[in-house]
């Protein structure tokens, strides 16, 4: 198999509040012999908030990030659902609108860059499924997670709007019955837990302005997984992870019930199955203790 190589857009969270996500991404990439060229020049994607303030500026900055992936001649891989949404959305809008693309390129030209539209943008989850292959993951599993019921939590920005995401990856995900993360859990030897909230919102994006709404959504999600006998949750989004891992107190208060489950990053789950150590996967960085290792 030809060695897979991507331009890695880390996003901001993996370098700050979820260091374990960065560690586990690199550990898993090493195990799978995937080469990741980190885009150290990249800026924040705007996280769908800069977009509320200055749409054109957010397009220019995201186009600049993709332009760096294009300079490497590589597909850009993201490890955050919101980064994926904003970057893929930028690509979609520029590729469909030559006038807008020209305007953005006028700005990029000021710093010697050009957005061409040649690099695809995909989430690491789909790079693994589409390009590496679940069958190969399965073959490489050395510590199957067979004793665990694992609840997938997909995160909105990787599955909606489906029309946008269908452009970037081969696995056509049904936003109302997504399967990619379930398939990955099964490939790692775990038992996937089906529950109503697996494709719902965690509330992260209104954490500051509407804390009660955010807490109810977080609490309901953890409760849904708990009620379906999950031992842990797993998510491809560091923002969902932050909500589900660190906000259990407010979430419990909001729904009037104590809820708390270990929440693994997708990469940590794969890493465990592939035999990476707890230290390599940064398991000590979780607020909700990982007590099953």
């Amino acid at each position, binding site marked *: 198999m030809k060695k897979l190589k991507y331009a890695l857009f880390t996003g901001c969270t993996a370098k700050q509040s979820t260091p374990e996500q960065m560690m586990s991404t690199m550990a898993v990439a090493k195990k799978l012999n995937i080469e990741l060229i980190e885009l150290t020049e990249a800026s924040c994607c705007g996280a769908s908030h800069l977009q*509320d303030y200055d749409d054109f500026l957010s397009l220019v900055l995201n186009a600049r990030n993709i332009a760096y992936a294009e300079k490497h001649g590589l597909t850009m891989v993201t490890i955050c659902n919101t980064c994926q949404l904003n970057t893929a959305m930028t690509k979609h809008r520029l590729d469909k609108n030559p006038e807008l693309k020209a305007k953005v390129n006028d700005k990029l030209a000021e710093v010697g860059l050009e957005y061409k539209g040649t690099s695809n943008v995909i989430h690491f989850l789909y790079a693994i499924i589409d390009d590496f292959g679940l069958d190969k993951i399965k073959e490489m599993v050395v510590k199957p997670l067979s004793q665990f019921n694992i609840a997938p939590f997909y995160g909105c920005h990787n599955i909606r709007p489906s029309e946008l995401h269908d452009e970037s990856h081969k696995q056509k995900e049904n936003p109302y019955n997504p399967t990619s993360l379930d398939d990955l859990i099964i490939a790692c030897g775990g038992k996937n837990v089906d529950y109503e909230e697996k494709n719902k919102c965690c509330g992260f994006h209104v954490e500051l302005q509407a804390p009660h709404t955010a807490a109810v959504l977080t609490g309901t999600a953890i409760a849904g997984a708990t009620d379906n006998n999950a031992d842990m949750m797993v998510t491809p989004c560091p923002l969902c992870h932050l909500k589900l891992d660190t906000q259990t107190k407010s979430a419990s208060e909001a729904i009037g019930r104590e809820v708390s489950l270990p929440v693994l990053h997708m990469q940590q789950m794969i890493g465990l199955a592939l035999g990476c150590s707890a230290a390599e996967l940064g398991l000590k960085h979780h607020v909700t203790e990982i007590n099953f290792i």
Partner: protein
Amino acid sequence: MSTDKISTQKVNFKVFRFNADEDYLPYYENYTMDITSEEVVLDVLNRIKWDYDGSFSYRRSCRHGICGACAIKVNGRSTLACKESMSTMIEYFGNEITLEPLSTKRAIKDMIIDKGDFWEKHAAVTPYLVADIDESPACENLVSPHDSEELDEADLCIQCGACHYACPVVEINSDFFGPAAFVAAYRFESDVRDSDKQRLINVNEEKQGVWDCVKCIECTEVCPKGINPFSKITKLHQMAFKKGVAKSNVATRHAVGFLHSIKRNGVLDEGGLVLYSEGVHIVKHIPVALQMFRKGKIVLPWNIVKSDNLDEIQKLIKSSSTVKF
């Protein structure tokens, strides 16, 4: 003329039943039917009523995706029954299909709900053109093609309620106007003939307005008319800044804070952003922040790794910024 062969498959339907005049609690009735590839969800509702139980109730009218009456939920997904094919639903969910009203807590009889909250919120955004009209105009009030494009198809909304009752915030926060009302607000706010001064302010108020949207994009996913309410919500945010009605509060500072952070570091300074957004109220986050700090999840400002070629980012911000706050 389609040459596809009509196929048939057996589907089990679990159907929400409730009569507010007689029932204390709702219940589910099961029906099994052979469904052809030609049928839409409304055909199933009709067959339940015509073949199984004449008391089964639902709203329907145009049968052409125009009136918006027949919206229900299929396996939790808001769906306009007359437009959605059963083939697609079976492809989505398999042969076990649950039919429910758009909001079970608002059910009156079976699929019929009280949409009072929906219409109240619709009315609250002044969903009509406000303009001084010359009763004897010398010429037509022309709108250029360019200006009409600004409506961005928001006028295609049929008020079916699919997005409204798919919105998780509507379920939690009874003050929240919801995506359909925001689409209506955008429809008239983006009309060059409109002169209303209050609408944009109303849809920017905290609790009820666009800043309480969780950005889950459910509304866009379910809209049967392809309107993309999420994009209208984003545009209302942008309009608030451009038209100078955005008040300085935690929500607006959160959006603006991204710019400051990116200008300074390229990447986001997460702690700095929370401080900028919350001001002195940041103290309420201290317990969680301490937990995170102990777990190595908070990077102090002087340790943030800035983007390479930061000068490029700063130059682009200077030359590309289009909004002031």
